[in-house]
């Protein structure tokens, strides 16, 4: 596919154009880069929290940025933006992934669940309620990722997916504290709420048949 010659109407161009009336041009190199060459723009359609959306995107847009900047679902957080911290964890077709390490255009037809889709203040998901009950956060920045990951972890255990600490690969999986901790190692919490997160997960796991 040749690059489309259609110029994207960039934020930098808008800001630069407005500079005469006192708006500072955005100096960020990320935006400078978008002007280096004209780029392609693509449509992608996926379902987020039960609603179908079609977005027109620069292919560089990560799933994380599509959710936050285009769909204004800011619950999913950008931490490291390199798949190391887990703050951007969302559930795609039932599996948790780092939304920062995935291009939005790769998700055509996918079903995506973010923290906003798990529950809201009036109808909390059991995991959200357990995090509140057990004080499973301090600053809260990693929390949406932790909760999405925790919900998916319990599904993984239920569906018999083993982990690094599973003693017997052929035996049924356990909801042990050790299993929860190992499976949650892709979610970093700088405040160190780990033990309370593990307690919240244990409560939800215990409540499930």
């Amino acid at each position: 596919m040749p690059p489309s010659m259609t110029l994207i109407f960039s934020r930098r161009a808008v800001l630069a154009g407005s500079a005469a009336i006192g708006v500072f041009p955005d100096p960020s190199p990320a935006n400078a880069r978008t002007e280096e060459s004209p780029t392609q723009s693509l449509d992608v359609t996926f379902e987020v929290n039960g609603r179908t959306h079609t977005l027109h995107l620069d292919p560089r847009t990560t799933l994380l940025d599509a959710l936050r900047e285009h769909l204004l679902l800011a619950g999913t957080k950008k931490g490291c933006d390199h798949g190391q911290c887990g703050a951007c964890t969302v559930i795609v077709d039932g599996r948790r992934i780092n939304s920062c390490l995935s291009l939005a255009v790769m998700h055509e037809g996918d079903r995506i669940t973010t923290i906003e889709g798990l529950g809201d203040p009036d109808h909390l998901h059991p995991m959200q309620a357990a995090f509140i009950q057990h004080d499973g956060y301090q600053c809260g920045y990693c929390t949406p990722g932790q909760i999405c990951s925790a919900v998916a972890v319990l599904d993984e255990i239920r569906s018999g997916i083993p982990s690094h600490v599973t003693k017997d690969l052929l035996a049924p999986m356990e909801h042990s504290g050790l299993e929860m901790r190992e499976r949650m190692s892709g979610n970093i919490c700088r405040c160190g709420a780990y033990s309370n997160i593990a307690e919240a997960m244990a409560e939800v796991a215990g409540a499930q048949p």
Partner: protein
Amino acid sequence: MKAFTYERARTPHEAVTALARTPGARIIAGGTNLLDLMKLQIETPDHLIDIGRIGLDTIDDTPDGGLRIGALVRNTDLAADMRVRRHYGVLSRALLAGASGQLRNKATTSGNLLQRTRCPYFYDPNQPCNKRQPGAGCAAIGGVSRQLGIIGTSEACIATHPSDMAVAMRLLDATVETINVRGQSRHISIADFHRLPGKTPHIETSLHSDELITSLTLPPPVGGHHFYRKVRDRASYAFALVSVAAILQKDGTGRVAVGGIAPKPWRIEAAESEMPKGSEAVAARLLADASPTPANAFKVPLVERTLAAVIQEAKAS
């Protein structure tokens, strides 16, 4: 990220056709390593060919009793497959010791093999790196090298291949199958798949630029007791300092491959004949040509001790 164009292939043939047609094109599957590097402008493809929807995502029995693993099978699904858990336990164990749950859900079998051999200096564009810019020099040599390679390295590069899965694949004698746009298929032994750096550390595998990996095939199971022991600075979600993959038989024979120490999974079949003599004899043969830095010389005894622990565990069970 540098600007790129994107297309979604529908079949393996479409993917290799696009690859042959488009200069500067790269294949993207799970994307967990490629996108990470693209964000840092270490990888700067002009065009991405998404192979996420081309199939090749099943694990099939082979007529001789082995398994053919599609290139696009996710790491989670491969580790969880009951045939793999039952007959190739070392592969499940290695996969589960790698990365995080989120990454394993995206990472694919072929992508795991093709992740870049790397070190922190490769990730830092302000440092010279012969992989990023051939001829630039290597900042890791003489730099912080505790995590880096002790054998198979060169004066141009001391980075390690970080895959756990590849170590198990090497132990299991997997074969990589590829296709190209002319319909030619190639079978590459896993032993020959990753290249040592020599003077060209930017060339990491024997895959041709027009080839697409379609599957990895495992020969029939060899039985025995399977181990993957990974030693690292934290208990989870960290690269190995040293990892030992082993299949040990009741009669004291076995096979061993080591990760975390070299630019490729490190296995020397001749060392395995020393198995009845114990870990010291095996490790001495495996690491006879080791040239560690002062900072990572600890890996030499660590390989021996990790293997000793594995052998002891086998005897106790």
